């Protein structure tokens, strides 16, 4: 098919180059500079899509993002659902088809890159039409840091679709000069193909730059396809223009029906004739330009149908000179055609009454019902709107700090006015920044504006078709009609929000760009109230749709969330460790040998620690250095137990509670000096505990002379665990007397290794003789390997978190966050011994005295031993009373508690578990049931310490 509807010259397309694309499987051609829409029109194709509800054909009705009709699915180069043909730039190899309401997602991952960039500017100008360019020039000339963003492929805005002249030359020459001048200012960033889609407080604007979409298959892979700009602007100038508003009439959705301004744009910007025979239906003067321009381009303009009783005298005169018939006091009441428009039905219109209609043949029906300023961003940032009854439009209704609205977005209609208003806007922004404009801030000379005849506000033409508004479409994308609005109002709805929800108007792809104000007007009419009382629905981000992946940016895959690793990570990887996510940390869970499953590996690792020696990378434990004369005072207030009595050189286990008395963290505390402690926290609790301590110290007790500093990554920590650990430590640190007498349990000693400071601590989380080795991570690998080397004769075995969990569980040591859930007190854990009775107060103490804390049925940590000595109870299993019949009763079944930890024990040669059980300590010796799968597993309740309850092993 040849491009029958292409003009012979003009437009912003590269006629020398032809690109091939397919639409609905048909191969077509166009030119660089085309959009998919202009190329389709150039090929004579108006029908693009099928409507969602009624399956009616839909075509291209506007030239940019406000188009309610031309929804397409892109298939090549990569499937992308629901785009507007008017905003898809044409490239070689583009394949697309019209949408039947729903888009289709690709079934393969999107390999394109996306990213985000932060920008800080004095003045952000949104829109590079005449007002925006004028504002940007004013700000740039004054030396301000300026960013200018515009959603189209090139600057110019409305000038791209017209024949305006500035300084006596085509206006686009001025645009080119303005763009060139902006490029010369070093502090100006000018971004085309960049849509400001969200405006927020304090000058924050989000914009989406489509960087490579227009390059199609030639897009470089290393560049982000789309980029989100996060712009903090001290001042925002909104020069976002205006959208033409249609008038609603019967069968107004028939392809070939188009906004008048859009037809001008297709003609002037793309060199496309959207039809051969046109009828122009208008309520104001601007559509006459379309009629005259199309006529000049060879389109037969059958009639201008002007709803105003007197029409526009000066425009009538222009039309008459051109031989165009003008019908004043007339409206289009409907259309005819199979798919595309073949006739416009035109009838006299006076006093709101429609006369008998006649048909006028046409293949293009242009409509203009006035202009809606694009106030979306202004409204998003909570600017109040006011209704202007003369224009039938909502305009910015207040001044906002940091936001200036200018040009047609502020309701200015003519070119000279927009330029001057843009300059005013730029200067207003500068004035708020105390930046003086330059003297040479010149505007181009624009023709004197002609005062137009007053527009008529006409939302809809009364339906004389007999369809009672059921084919008078308000929201084409939702197939919502005047009849739907009438039903909503008839059902009793009064709020515009209710009508929107009843009819679904404004909720589709275009978010009501053309339908929103129409709906307000029609609802007001039906209710007999002023439009300002009806108002509009709320404008919310984004202004135009944004791909999920663009917002995800680079936070995908590897960079989705940081992986934190210890200094030994590479060693763990080389040793074949299987890792576990603990918060953001990667921790070795176990180190399987060839042929081993996890159970076998863990049994082996546990056995090594219980009978020989094991070694763990415990570096992820949180560490906090607490210093100052009042360090002990702070710790006494935050730990449940007394820390001030701890001797320098010693270690104490401590528990922290929230003000509600529930355990939030635990760990050991080393007293390094009278005024200095080293706290160890859980891996997951490190940041939280530091925050907690700083919060109290700063906000509540600023009088305390104490400072807390995170040293988590300052110290690699390796517990060396097991009866042979003394041999290993003694061999590596020969200067240290590792005997129990010289180095007792719960003490620490400083030493050096080849001149490097090392701290050793007799701390055990397994019940076995154990030494924790602390060293600067610079030396972590070297020290770890030294320990392995020294341990080789004893079969030293690296073990992971799973074995660590088994070893501690055998001793009844809880893991905060696993054996607790935010509802557990130290007493519930059987740790009354860790709660000071001497201290008058500490955080959480008062809560222990609440009535619920005295409940004998509080859940308490106990041990469980499956009677069959075989079943490993799934962690999380619930516990119920023993049922003599071995059967569960019908629900609800009262629950006694749940299994918090459960393992197979090498030491016990049977599985065991820890559990929180109601009144658990009273139940020790009882048998209860745990439902597992379909059966009830009998388990014996025991104390929580199952291995070495006497604590005989800790000294080896």
């Amino acid at each position, binding site marked *: 098919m040849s491009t029958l509807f292409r003009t012979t010259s003009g437009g912003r397309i590269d006629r020398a180059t032809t690109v091939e694309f397919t639409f609905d499987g048909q191969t077509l051609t166009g030119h660089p500079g085309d959009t998919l829409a202009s190329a389709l029109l150039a090929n004579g194709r108006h029908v693009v899509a099928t409507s969602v509800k009624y399956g009616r054909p839909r075509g291209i009705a506007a030239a940019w993002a406000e188009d309610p009709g031309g929804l397409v699915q892109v298939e090549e180069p990569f499937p992308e659902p629901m785009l507007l043909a008017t905003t898809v730039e044409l490239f070689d190899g583009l394949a697309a088809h019209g949408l039947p309401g729903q888009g289709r997602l690709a079934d393969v991952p999107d390999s394109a890159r996306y990213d985000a960039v932060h920008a800080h500017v004095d003045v952000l100008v949104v829109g590079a039409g005449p007002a925006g360019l004028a504002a940007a020039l004013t700000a740039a000339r004054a030396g301000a840091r300026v960013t200018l963003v515009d959603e189209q492929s090139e600057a110019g805005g409305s000038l791209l679709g017209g024949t305006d002249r500035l300084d006596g030359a085509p206006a686009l020459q001025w645009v080119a000069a303005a763009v060139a001048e902006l490029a010369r200012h070093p502090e100006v960033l000018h971004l085309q193909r960049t849509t400001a889609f969200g405006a927020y*407080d*304090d000058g924050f604007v989000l914009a989406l730059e489509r960087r490579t979409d227009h390059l199609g298959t030639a897009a470089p892979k290393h560049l982000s396809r789309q980029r989100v700009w996060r712009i903090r602007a001290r001042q925002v100038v909104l020069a976002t223009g205006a959208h033409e508003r249609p008038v609603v009439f019967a069968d107004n959705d028939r392809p070939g029906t188009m906004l008048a301004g859009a037809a001008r744009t297709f003609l002037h910007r793309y060199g496309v004739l959207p039809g051969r025979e046109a009828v122009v239906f208008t309520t104001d003067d601007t559509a006459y330009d379309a009629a005259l321009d199309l006529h000049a381009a060879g389109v037969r303009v059958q009639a201008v149908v002007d709803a105003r009783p007197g029409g526009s005298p000066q425009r009538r005169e222009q039309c008459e000179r051109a031989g165009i018939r003008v019908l004043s006091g007339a409206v289009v009441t409907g259309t005819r055609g199979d798919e595309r428009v073949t006739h416009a039905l035109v009838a006299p219109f006076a006093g709101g009454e429609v006369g008998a209609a006649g048909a006028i043949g046409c293949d293009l029906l242009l409509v203009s019902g006035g202009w809606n300023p694009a106030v979306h961003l202004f409204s998003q940032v909570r600017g109040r709107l006011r209704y202007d009854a003369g224009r039938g439009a909502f305009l910015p209704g207040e001044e906002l700090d940091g936001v200036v609205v200018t040009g047609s977005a502020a309701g200015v209609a003519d070119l000279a006015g927009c330029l001057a208003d843009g300059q005013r806007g730029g200067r207003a922004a500068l004035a708020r920044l105390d930046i003086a404009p330059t003297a040479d801030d010149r505007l181009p000379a624009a023709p004197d504006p002609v005062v137009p005849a007053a527009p008529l506000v006409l939302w809809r033409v009364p339906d004389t078709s007999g369809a009672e508004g059921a084919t008078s479409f308000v929201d084409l994308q939702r197939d919502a009609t005047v009849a739907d609005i009438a039903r909503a109002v008839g059902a009793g709805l009064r709020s515009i929000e209710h009508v929107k929800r009843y009819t679904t108007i404004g909720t589709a792809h275009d978010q009501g760009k053309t339908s929103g104000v129409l709906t307000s007007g029609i609802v007001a009419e039906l209710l007999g109230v002023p439009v300002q009382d009806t108002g509009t629905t709320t404008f919310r981000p984004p202004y135009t749709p944004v791909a999920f992946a663009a917002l995800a940016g680079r936070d995908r895959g590897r960079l989705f969330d940081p992986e934190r690793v210890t200094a030994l990570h590479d060693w763990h990887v080389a040793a074949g460790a299987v890792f576990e996510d603990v918060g953001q940390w990667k921790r070795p869970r176990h180190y399987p040998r060839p042929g081993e499953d996890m159970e076998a590996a863990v049994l082996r690792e546990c056995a090594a620690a219980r009978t020989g020696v094991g070694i763990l990378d415990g570096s992820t434990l949180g560490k906090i250095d607490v210093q100052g004369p009042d360090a002990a005072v702070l710790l006494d207030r935050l730990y449940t137990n007394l820390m001030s009595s701890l001797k320098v050189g010693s270690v104490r286990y401590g528990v922290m509670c929230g003000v509600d008395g529930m355990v939030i963290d635990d760990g050991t505390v080393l007293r390094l000096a009278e005024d200095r402690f080293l706290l160890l926290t859980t891996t997951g609790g490190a940041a939280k505990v530091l*925050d907690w301590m700083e919060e109290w110290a700063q906000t509540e007790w600023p009088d305390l002379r104490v400072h807390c500093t995170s040293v988590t990554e300052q110290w690699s920590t390796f517990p060396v665990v097991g009866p042979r650990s003394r041999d290993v430590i003694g061999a590596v640190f020969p200067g240290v007397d590792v005997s129990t007498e010289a180095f007792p349990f719960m003490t620490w000693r400083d030493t050096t290794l080849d001149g490097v400071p090392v701290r050793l601590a007799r701390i055990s989380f397994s019940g076995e003789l154990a030494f924790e080795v602390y060293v600067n991570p610079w030396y972590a690998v070297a020290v770890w390997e030294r320990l392995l080397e020294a341990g080789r004769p004893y079969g030293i075995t690296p073990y992971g978190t799973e074995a660590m969990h088994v070893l501690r569980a055998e001793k009844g040591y809880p893991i905060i966050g696993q054996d607790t859930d935010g509802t557990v007190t130290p007493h519930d854990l059987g740790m009354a011994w860790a709660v000071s009775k001497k201290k008058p107060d500490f955080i959480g103490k008062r809560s222990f005295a609440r009535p619920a804390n005295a409940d004998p049925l509080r859940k308490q940590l106990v041990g469980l031993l499956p009677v069959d000595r075989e079943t490993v109870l799934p962690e999380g299993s619930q516990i119920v009373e023993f049922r003599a019949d071995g059967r569960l009763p019908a629900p609800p079944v009262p629950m006694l508690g749940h299994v918090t930890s459960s393992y197979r024990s090498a030491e016990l040669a049977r599985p065991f578990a820890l559990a929180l059980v109601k009144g658990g300590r009273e139940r020790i010796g009882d048998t209860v049931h745990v439902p597992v799968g379909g059966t009830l597993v009998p388990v014996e309740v025991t104390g929580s310490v199952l291995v070495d309850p006497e604590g005989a092993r800790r000294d080896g």
Partner: protein
Amino acid sequence: MQLIACPWCGPREEVEFSYGGQAHVPYPDSPAELSDEEWAHYVFFRDNPRGRFAERWNHNAGCRRWFNAIRDTSTYRFESVYRLDDPKPVTP
């Protein structure tokens, strides 16, 4: 998407801060002497006004200092920030 003026570091993005709820709620002098109800009010009950609210913020990703702010909970706008040892600004 507020730009929050840390009293020390100056304006920073909201994401750098953590929220601490109502300000000027001191830890009771003698919790042991409070009734269960009084204690519950300290632990769980905080004002929740629509409008101006004196609240605590922490510049968590920056200088890690806590400070107070008067903010309008309906507009989210910060009216003022002040250091912990500054008195609460007098409401006009």
